[in-house]
């Protein structure tokens, strides 16, 4: 079963200068028990996507079409808000970049972990034990004593692990992790992603992991979705994307990663040009103005080309790997 199926989703915001199409024909699946990484630069629509899934779009945002099907039954684009509230937390949980923003600074960790179990029918002691169990799972030393402490008494890495423990406490079907390791240094980042992988297997949930750190994505995720200017330009398994990218944007993005330059260089590769104005989207390919493989055919909307085994790229030459100039 697919935990989350997003099909042809379109989201726009009304602005003074006219409608801004933040997401255009976005389709991908988050299969059961998989970790799906979402990659894309800031402004590519990652946050809009999360908010659309959670039913938290700003007042000027609207879903103009498409569907977000959760666990094969709940259509999130038209769900009554009361039902959405039942899903948020117990079934769909989130972890954000800044753990301090997720934890209340003036309430002890234990009390916060009790509070979020308000729907549970367990007794207070049982809830306490559950909280201890979760803190032990995320390797907080001396978990029972930790319940009495306040967020500022933990290090940044520990706070993020507490936030993860809280998100997974109700054993959700889907965890949305929005850049959860960006604020951590390399050693903590690695421990956090290893922990996340471990917990995902223990709990058996699906994870949507948003990051612009390609190394973290490569290490953690099963599948990868590449977004550019509000469109999914390519999606596939982590090996398909990192070893055989078919969309020129994916290929260029991977080349830009300083981690791929084994030789020390003072001049790092970049993608020249800027993202087009989303209020005036080009009719054709969204990447055409920055693509060095552009041709006349790119002025028509490109099809989602199926390369096989779930590998899809929105580019007319995606099925001719020699033409995408990929040097993976």
């Amino acid at each position, binding site marked *: 079963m697919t935990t989350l199926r997003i099909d042809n989703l379109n989201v726009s915001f009304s602005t003074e200068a006219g409608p801004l199409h933040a997401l255009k024909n976005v389709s991908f699946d988050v299969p059961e028990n998989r970790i799906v990484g979402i990659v894309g630069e800031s402004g590519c629509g990652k946050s809009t996507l999360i908010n659309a899934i959670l039913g938290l779009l700003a007042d000027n945002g609207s879903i103009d079409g498409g569907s977000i099907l959760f666990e094969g039954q709940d259509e999130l684009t038209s769900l009554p808000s009361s039902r959405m509230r039942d899903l948020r937390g117990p079934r769909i949980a989130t972890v954000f970049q800044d753990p301090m923003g997720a934890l209340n600074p003036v309430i002890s960790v234990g009390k916060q972990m009790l509070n979020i179990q308000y729907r549970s029918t367990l007794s207070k002691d049982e809830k306490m034990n559950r909280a201890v169990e979760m803190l032990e799972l995320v390797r907080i030393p001396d978990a029972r004593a930790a319940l009495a402490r306040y967020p500022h008494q933990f290090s940044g890495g520990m706070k993020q692990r507490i936030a993860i423990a809280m998100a997974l406490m109700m054993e959700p079907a889907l965890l949305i992790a929005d850049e959860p390791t*960006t604020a951590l240094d390399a*050693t903590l980042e690695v421990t956090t992603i290893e922990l996340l992988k471990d917990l995902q297997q223990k709990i058996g949930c699906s994870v949507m992991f948003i990051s612009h750190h390609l190394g973290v994505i490569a290490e953690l995720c099963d599948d990868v979705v590449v977004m550019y200017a509000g469109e999914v330009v390519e999606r596939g398994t982590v*090996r398909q994307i990192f070893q055989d990218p078919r969309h020129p944007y994916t290929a260029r993005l991977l080349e830009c990663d*300083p981690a791929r330059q084994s030789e020390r260089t003072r001049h790092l590769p*970049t993608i020249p040009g800027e*993202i087009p104005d989303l209020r005036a989207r080009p009719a054709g390919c969204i990447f055409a103005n920055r693509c060095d493989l552009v041709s006349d055919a790119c002025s028509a909307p490109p099809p989602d080309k199926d390369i096989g085994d779930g590998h899809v790229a929105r580019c007319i030459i995606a099925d001719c790997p020699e033409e995408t100039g990929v040097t993976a």
Partner: protein
Amino acid sequence: MSSDPILKVEDVQVSFPVGGFGRRNSILGVAGVSFEVNRGETFALVGESGSGKTTLARAVNGLQEISAGSITFEDQRIDELDPRAMKPVRKRMSMMFQDPVGSLSPRMTVGDLVTEPFRIHGIEGRNLRDEAERLLTLVGLPTSFDSRFPHQLSGGQARRVGVARAIALDPALIIADEPTAGLDVSVQGEVLNLLNDLRERLGLAMVIITHNLHVVHHVADRTAVMYLGRFVEAGETEEVFSAPQHPYTAALLSANPEPDPDKTHDRITLPAEVPSLLARPSGCEFHTRCPWAQSQCSFDAPERHVTDERVIACHFPLAPGARPPEQKESVLS
């Protein structure tokens, strides 16, 4: 390398008061750090959050009072200067702050923002419009941007405006605090290339603070690794990366995620959490997490040795490619 230090930091300490009302105490955010930055050189400060990188940068720029040590910039002691006397120094040493959009006033246009340094320092006799044009061109932004407001900029563009402000008064040294945090890889490359071009063209020295080790590898001439407010290792970037001698450096480098799903990782895992600055461990402060720690490390603080341009604070410096003892055993069993 010819030694022509533009900045000389000696045994600098920064302490912060904590507690209050009968429990007054203080912690050392920076606990005795020395380094030099030469003209035209890029010096990187690496370390986890809370290791004192930003505090050290603020201390160098005079934004944070130091409690011991000395800072010499262009042959002038600057740590004892009062704010008024510090002002001309800031023309020569500029700072780029972490948050690219947050460090720009939302109510000023880009043109006003890039020429604000001239107004602050009362530099007259220049046409500010021309200056704005010159600076925007230098950082690769269209001159039409001078009427835009910060919220109309992308993260990368806001960074460029930050760079334009930093170079406006022809400084000799730029301190850049996480210049690429939050930027995606292609924009990150643009900002780093820009800083590097400017360094070459204007002969700038740079101090870059970051926790992105891939970035450090490419842009920095020398790198210092900080842990709990001290340098545990410092040296030529290439050498530090190819043969780390301090266990913490080795662990940091081995933890660096690589964009290759099939890469097998031979990681050095660090047991235990980062200690609190309120309860610094005795002896070598890294011994609580060090896989190589021996009994001597728990009571005897290592001296800093300097060998071949490498500074290292460890009793038992690692040989190249060393593996932690316990992990070796587990492989055998």
